[in-house]
């Protein structure tokens, strides 16, 4: 291949519009809209398609929950620069809040979920405030410690039902509401956040990630921006936690568990960070994979981990990033 190289060329519309969408024909509209429609339509149809396999309808719920936590991680890590390993904290706090609201205070389910997301968001933001000045790994580790700390505190003080947890939460009226509620939440969060990161405030957050020093020099309080971002992320996380608690009518220590912190991150790495959709795509791959492997018993974790490693090694950039590139660009050999 002496003196030949592969060239990447943007597909026509991308070149002409360059990010500003000047659309002229139906074909071009489809070019831009089709992937989005596929995602939305796919998600909305899933529960209907899976009517035949009722168990898999339950898996969708879990899938969406993981996807939402993954989105919250992706948002914080790749758009604000806070690598938060404490996804379990959000889930746990959200779950416990809704358990307290619903089980102790008897607030009905459709109020307790948003309310606990809100309260949980505020609570987590307050917790994170002191560590916002930490950098990189150190922030990551403190956030990793938080869920562990809460587990131990609840365990040691024997509050909030101790290790047994709080049971007897209200469940959803029926399976369809259960399915569609979480799917709608997921889609709203997905497109809402994609919108947000391109709005002005989103740009400021991305600027914080790139370089907080010059953001400070521009007269913007970095801590304030970071805490808004943390609030958004923890609100999202708590929402999924509250949903999960109601889904299983139970809130307990294991809501804080490591799986909720690690698996979504794995989903983001597999799907490709920095695109938000990648988080969803990653979950769409990993959660069903884990379900297919359930049959293998304990050995399942081994296979699962090895497949995960394979994904990382073979497509280390992330599947979504790879696909986006393939969608927008084609390659050809050219002479030098």
């Amino acid at each position, binding site marked *: 291949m002496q*003196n030949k*190289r*592969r*060239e*990447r*060329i943007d597909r026509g519309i991308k070149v002409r519009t360059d990010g500003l969408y000047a659309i002229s024909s139906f074909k071009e509209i489809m070019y831009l809209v089709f992937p989005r429609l596929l995602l939305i339509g796919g998600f909305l149809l899933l529960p209907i398609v899976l009517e035949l396999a009722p168990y898999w309808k339950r898996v969708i719920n879990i899938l969406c929950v993981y996807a939402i936590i993954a989105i919250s991680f992706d948002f914080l890590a790749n758009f604000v620069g806070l690598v938060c390993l404490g996804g379990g904290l959000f889930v746990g706090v959200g779950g416990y809040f809704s358990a307290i609201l619903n089980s102790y205070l008897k607030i009905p389910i459709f109020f307790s979920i948003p309310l606990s997301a809100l309260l949980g968001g505020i609570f987590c933001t307050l917790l994170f405030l002191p560590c916002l000045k930490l950098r990189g790994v150190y922030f990551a580790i403190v956030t990793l410690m938080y869920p562990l700390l809460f587990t131990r505190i609840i365990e040691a003080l024997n509050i909030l039902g101790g290790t047994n947890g709080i049971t007897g939460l209200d469940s959803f009226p029926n399976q369809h509401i259960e399915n569609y509620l979480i799917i709608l939440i997921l889609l709203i969060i997905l497109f809402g956040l994609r919108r947000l990161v391109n709005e002005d405030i989103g740009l400021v957050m991305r600027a914080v990630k790139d370089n907080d020093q010059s953001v400070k020099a521009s007269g913007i309080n970095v801590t304030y921006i970071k805490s808004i971002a943390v609030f958004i992320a923890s609100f999202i996380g708590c929402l999924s936690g509250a949903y999960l608690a109601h889904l299983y009518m139970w809130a307990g220590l294991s809501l804080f568990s490591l799986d909720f912190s690690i698996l979504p991150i794995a989903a983001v790495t597999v799907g490709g960070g920095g695109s938000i959709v990648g988080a969803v795509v990653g979950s769409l791959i990993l959660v069903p994979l884990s379900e297919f492997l359930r049959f293998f018993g304990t050995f399942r974790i081994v296979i699962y981990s090895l497949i995960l490693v394979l994904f990382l090694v073979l497509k*280390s*950039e*992330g599947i979504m990033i*790879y696909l986006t590139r393939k969608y927008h660009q084609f390659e050809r050999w050219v002479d030098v």
Partner: protein
Amino acid sequence: MLEVTNLMVFYENMLAINNVTLTAKKGSIVGVFGSNSAGKSTLMYSISGIILDIKKKEAMKGGERITVFGKVIFDSKDITNLLPHERAKMGIVLCPERRRIFPESSVLENLKIGAYLDKRNEKKNLEYVLNIFPRLKDHLNRQGGFLSGGEQQMLAIGRALMASPSVLLLDEPLLGLSPYYQKIVVDSIKDIKATKNITVIVAEQYARPIIPVIDYGYIIENGSSVLEGTSESLLNNPDVKSAYFGV
């Protein structure tokens, strides 16, 4: 001695280096001049092999695709595909842009790490480095990161010398230096050539202090070599004068 023939480097579709040919004779000082992003650093990376490392990392991340054509020949051996540490073993040592000293190690330790390839002559080299940069002697136990920019630059050059190189690549050695330190660095380059017979290739955007000391120089613009010649011929060139001396 060191030859670069028809080098071309693409960052994705952008041509960073366009058909550059460069020769450095043993024991000479070669200057590479050009404005920002003319391709000086890329050229230095290509000679030292760092470009291969960058290429690997970019490919991993799914970022830009870097393509390199042409040849780098050293001592009549083709080293185009050798990794940076392999080239360093052959004697091509780069002293990178922005110095990149080891900030958490002391000055002495920095120098010792530099001596990785040539432990036998460590004492002799150390003596030489401290001789041309006497300022480092006072700070031997200071942490590298706490040195001033000028001291860091001296340390970076000194560290590269500890490896007993036969070709020393200096990328923007004058960047951000005050006139005082500029002079020290330029003098040291002269000294290195004179006493150690080391080939020095200097890439610098701020050409004024360097052009007088070089044996041969290249001017690079937009990735292509537009002018070459001896120190004198460059100094007398009107274009060079207006572009680099502001006359």
